């Protein structure tokens, strides 16, 4: 498992049916594969996070495929509808197949 440094923002509590915002930020260079090493003149190989996913109590509610046009240190925000208390599990997958994960608990009331 890759050691991606990530920040996530998920509310601790939400009412059933409420649509809440989730914010995620992960540290990654997102090397495009288009740049050259200034000294050697060789192409720097592409190395990006190409997939982000969010599972809510085990079921995927949102995901995204990223191309090299996504900025370094990717930011991703989206929405989720509160159903049941449980966990939101986030994963980032890079070009080498390494996966970084982070989770957050949410309590759903009412």
């Amino acid at each position: 498992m890759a050691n991606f440094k990530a920040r996530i923002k998920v509310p601790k509590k939400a009412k059933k049916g409420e649509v809440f915002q989730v914010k995620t930020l992960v540290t990654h260079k997102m090397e495009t594969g288009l740049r050259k090493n200034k000294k050697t003149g060789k192409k720097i190989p592409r190395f990006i996070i190409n997939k982000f996913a969010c599972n809510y109590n085990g079921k995927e509610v949102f995901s995204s495929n990223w191309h090299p046009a996504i900025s370094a240190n990717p930011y991703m925000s989206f929405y989720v509808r509160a159903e049941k208390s449980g966990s939101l599990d986030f994963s980032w997958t890079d070009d080498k197949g390494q996966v970084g994960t982070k989770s957050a608990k949410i309590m759903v009331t009412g």
Partner: protein
Amino acid sequence: MVQRIEMKPVNRRDILRICGSGALALLSTSMLPGLVYADAKAVASEIKKLIGDKKMTEGRITIEAPQIAENGNTVPIGFTVDSPMTDADHVQSVHIFADENPSPEVASFHFSPASGKAQANTRMRMIKTQNVVAVAQTNTGSVFMAKAPVKVTIGGCGG
């Protein structure tokens, strides 16, 4: 005692000279000789791969993007698709393209009724002034699209 330093006025031309070197450095590091740029056609062909011969309708998507980007490295970009997001009628995916980047694809976003809203925000790279194109597909087979121009200026003065 502090020595007083004679200041002769600097004019804008002097200052612009700095940026000449900045711009050259930017060009040499960010572009490769023979790099092929995408164009509206490349975007159209990417869209065709996704949706086949389905009809696209303009509208229902609001793109959130700056008119002028502070820096092409990091352009905040978002969208909202007008949809009830129910099991019967929801947005399944939204694809973002840039029509003059080295490669037209930027990202695809996959939603479900549990998303509640077909809205997302991220940040993208833009090599020059161009259009951001968003294409949304719903579970009922409708396809919507929207376009927003973003100006990217050569900045990068200062090292």
